[in-house]
């Protein structure tokens, strides 16, 4: 009886603090976000905004029926897939092959420092490096690989988004290096790999059959969230992207800031579609996590 009397106020306090925490979280993050999405939805349906003339599906039809919107979505997915795919693959290979290198050696400082660089600065650095007038182009010219700077390929502001992918790759690589280095020790991968060796696995088999699946499984949610972050990025594609193939944030902002006010509801429509996609992915992730 005494124990129960002792525990009840404590449990009640815990419950209260949980509710306060959840309430604060909802008020500061989810609520403004929901308000924003709600307003965007109303605007896209002609139910809000200065030009509102009552309910209409015209803007949704215009966006969903336009080829450029789907090209933008496909291009955004392509950029996110390639940059995150490359960063995850390389980070995993490096950590599995040389797990101790990134823990506390002086080298690790130089590997991690790109994490502190803002996206716009990274975009500028990549522009300086890969553009037609950039460092690589000049080096290629000096080496006689190209006759003039104009012959240097369109790595920046080009159709394939190489500049955007490179910038995101350099920003994501150190992040995943840190993540996998910590996971390597936290998940006891050294022991698991040694176990695989004595069971007959060579280095490649141990990496493919043990280390990679364990790391991928544990980092799956983080990889998907980073993928969404890259898909929705703005500064890097603004500076390094082309005019004809835009990423989703750039297209949205352009529509929002155009002189043609009729484009504004379309910008809101795009943001609603993108938000729904993100929420669906996050819900799917949560479901998948529960099953694990």
């Amino acid at each position, binding site marked *: 009886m005494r124990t129960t009397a002792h525990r009840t106020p404590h449990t009640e306090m815990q419950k209260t603090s949980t509710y306060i925490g959840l309430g604060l979280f909802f008020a500061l993050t989810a609520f403004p976000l929901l308000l924003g999405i709600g307003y965007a939805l109303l605007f896209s349906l002609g139910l809000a905004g200065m030009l509102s003339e009552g309910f209409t599906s015209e803007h949704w039809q215009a966006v969903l029926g336009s080829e450029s919107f789907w090209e933008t979505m496909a291009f955004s997915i392509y950029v996110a897939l390639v940059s995150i795919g490359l960063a995850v693959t390389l980070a995993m290979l490096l950590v599995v092959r040389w797990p101790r290198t990134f823990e506390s050696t002086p080298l690790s400082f130089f590997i991690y420092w790109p994490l502190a660089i803002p996206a716009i600065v990274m975009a500028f650095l990549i522009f300086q490096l890969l553009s037609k007038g950039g460092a690589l182009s000049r080096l290629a010219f000096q080496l006689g690989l190209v006759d003039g700077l104009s012959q240097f390929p369109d790595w920046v502001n080009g159709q394939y988004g190489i500049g955007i992918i490179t910038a995101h790759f350099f920003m994501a690589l150190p992040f995943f290096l840190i993540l996998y280095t910590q996971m390597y020790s936290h998940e006891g991968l050294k022991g698991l790999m040694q176990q695989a060796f004595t069971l*007959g696995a060579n280095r490649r088999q141990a990496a493919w059959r043990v280390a990679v699946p364990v790391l991928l499984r544990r980092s799956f949610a983080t990889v998907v969230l980073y993928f969404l972050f890259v898909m929705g990025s703005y500064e890097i594609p603004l500076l390094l992207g082309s005019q004809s193939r835009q990423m989703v944030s750039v297209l949205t902002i352009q529509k929002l800031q155009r002189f043609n006010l009729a484009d504004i509801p379309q910008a809101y429509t795009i943001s609603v579609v993108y938000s729904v996609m993100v929420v669906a992915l996050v819900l799917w992730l949560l479901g998948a996590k529960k099953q694990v």
Partner: protein
Amino acid sequence: MFLEAKNINKGFGAEKVLDDLSLQLAEHEMLSILGRSGSGKTTLLKILAGLESPDKGMVLLQGQDMGPLPPNRRNIVYLYQEPLLFPHLNVFENIAFGLRLRKAPEGAVQKRVAEMLANLELPEQARKMPHQLSGGQRQRVAFGRALIINPKVLLLDEPFGALDAETRASMQQLLKRIAKAFAITALFVTHGLKEALIMGDRIGLMQQGELKVYDSKKAFIEDVETGVQAEMDFWREIE
């Protein structure tokens, strides 16, 4: 001799861990090695498995020098105190791991894993993931995963150290039964006196990097250094 370690020396920096250690192990024999923490037991097993290199000395298996062979080509399985099951594979696939590496036909994999599961009294757990098992069950799966590839030598590094007393006792009996059924050749490292006596056909004592193997259990019990006499005195005093 089936397994032989000759004049093994190993140090980490200034610390000498193994000092001119030699041992011999006959086929189908289980040698218990008793030793305190830091006596060099784990280092010895890792050298035998090929996970560490000795500074000096050699390891021979059926007369063949193991020095140039990497761990995956020695057919010596090292089992840690922790079962170290692969967390992304279920019980069936954990046990099948070595067979899959050797590209065994699917029919053979199914049959042999099912037999092993029955031997380990785990047939109902086949589809469970490692985190859904108890400590004892996990350790049994680790045994199954090792035994299914018929290793020439099994190195057991305090395999029951993390188990409670009751589970530990039943696991000791299970291992004794399996060792007999599979004619296992094994080194069993422990810091428990009773466990060393139960598990080993012969017993060795490891102290400060040196190994002393006794001719009989009687000789082991009579040696004051093993601590058996002190243990017996303790129980007599309680009586």
